[in-house]
């Protein structure tokens, strides 16, 4: 900076400084050059809590980093924002990288951030991966060792905080799906330094002092730090050592904890853990009703089979029955009697015809017919014998003469035999 003295102010000269004034822009540029020339400020990592984060329509992000003593204005250009997986939220502790420079129009210095990450997260992730690998090598997470869950648990242990929403979620799901189960809550803290040992104790107490059929270990969603108790090696070992199978339901879908790997079944959330732990009442009722239908159907079939067999036997019996024979014989009798009736009538008619013929003939042969023609029948008056010879009567004897329409008596006046008769 070359400002020439002009002697205008003696007072200024007392300080040995140039009396020539600088423009605001010159001052600001001077400060900026100082900062831009400092190698520490040009490659800076700074840690603090994010506040007032705002992303403008143009895509640049503005926020303030602060701690309990100071604050630092930060800007992150759109190109750098795009390289981030995500931006931190207000209140989160972050580690930011960038350079310090001056925003000349406002005369302020700012932190031009090119990368930001949650503070401590990298360390936690590294610990998580290291523990997971170590326990995996130890075959603590062996899929072959996983136990299957009981189909119809009678008592269900739940390891979680008695005041947390997770417990309410679990109880609601169990009450809706399978209220037959009895819940045994083994209370514990689920975050903080005390939490891992309490979780271990809660799991052990359920195993030692109750007859639960399975255990749900659960905690609602939270930050990685809040879920950290479930990434504790002691918790993982307690889960694996459990006598009964353990279902984990920690955090949200995206959260995987060491407890999840150690558990026999991993559920994405506490509610999901409860869903997996018990059967569904509605489905069971539908199954039970279906069984009832099958029972009725099976019995109907058996009855129908029996009825059919019975019908068959009855038919067979009927075929062997004397009733048929009797009926058959009766029919034969009927037929015979009918036939004999016909024959008899025929015979009678025949006889009647013969009789008529004979009667006719009798009529023609009858002596009465000759009477019509003037012949008479003469009988002896005393004996009634028909007289055919003069020898049979004597003079004076009475005779009866039969003519066509009656009889009259007469007395023999004389007899005269023909010569032929004497010759005989």
């Amino acid at each position, binding site marked *: 900076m070359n400002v020439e003295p002009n002697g205008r102010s003696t007072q200024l000269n007392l300080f040995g400084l140039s009396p020539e004034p600088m423009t605001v822009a010159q001052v600001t540029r001077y400060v900026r050059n100082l900062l831009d020339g400092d190698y520490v400020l040009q490659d800076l990592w700074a840690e603090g809590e994010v506040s007032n984060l705002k992303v403008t329509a143009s895509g640049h992000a503005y926020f303030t980093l602060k701690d309990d003593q100071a604050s630092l204005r930060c800007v992150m250009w759109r190109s750098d924002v795009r390289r981030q997986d995500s931006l931190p939220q207000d209140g989160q502790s972050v580690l930011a990288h960038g350079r310090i420079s001056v925003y000349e129009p406002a005369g302020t210095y700012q932190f031009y951030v090119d990368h930001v990450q949650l503070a401590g997260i990298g360390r936690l992730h590294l610990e998580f991966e290291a523990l997971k690998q170590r326990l995996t090598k130890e075959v603590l997470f062996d899929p072959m060792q996983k136990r299957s869950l009981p189909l119809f648990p*009678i008592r269900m242990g739940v390891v979680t905080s008695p005041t947390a929403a997770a417990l309410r979620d679990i109880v609601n799901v169990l009450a809706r799906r399978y209220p037959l189960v009895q819940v045994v809550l083994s209370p514990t803290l689920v975050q903080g330094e005390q939490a891992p040992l309490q979780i271990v104790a809660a799991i052990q*107490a359920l195993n030692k002092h*109750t*007859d639960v059929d399975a255990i749900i270990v659960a905690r609602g969603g939270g930050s990685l730090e809040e879920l950290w108790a479930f990434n504790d090696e002691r918790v993982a070992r307690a889960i694996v050592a459990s006598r009964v199978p353990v279902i984990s339901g920690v955090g949200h879908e995206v959260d995987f904890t060491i407890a999840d790997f150690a558990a026999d079944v991993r559920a994405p959330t506490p509610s999901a853990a409860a869903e997996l732990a018990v059967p569904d009442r509605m489905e*069971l009722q539908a199954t039970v009703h279906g069984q009832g239908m099958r*029972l009725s159907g099976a019995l109907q079939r058996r009855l129908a089979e*029996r009825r059919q067999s019975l019908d068959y036997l009855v038919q067979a019996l009927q075929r062997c029955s004397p009733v048929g024979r009797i009926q058959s014989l009766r029919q034969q009798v009927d037929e015979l009697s009918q036939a004999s009736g016909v024959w008899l009538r025929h015979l009678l008619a025949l006889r009647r015809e013969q009789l008529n013929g004979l009667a006719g003939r009798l009529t023609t042969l009858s002596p009465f017919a000759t009477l019509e023609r003037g012949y008479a029948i003469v009988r002896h008056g005393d004996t009634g014998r028909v007289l055919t010879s003069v020898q049979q009567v004597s003079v004076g004897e009475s005779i009866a003469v039969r003519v066509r329409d009656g009889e009259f008596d007469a007395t023999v006046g004389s007899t005269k035999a023909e010569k032929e008769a004497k010759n005989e």
Partner: protein
Amino acid sequence: MSEKKKELAFEAAFQELEETVQRLEDGELTLDEAIALFERGQALARLCDEKLERAKLRVNQLLPDADGSYREVPFEMEA
């Protein structure tokens, strides 16, 4: 151990129901046996249904006593 396990639990009733249906469908049975199985199955189905219908979830809390033992006390959910 809980007293509940003494009576016919849902699981036992449900399994016996399944076996009963199976036997009635496939077994060599006299008519009397078939009818007896049917009646048993009906009773089991009713029992299962009632258990499912009437059950109310119970929640206990497992608490340590001073002497190191544990006891279960009914747990009331906060409203």
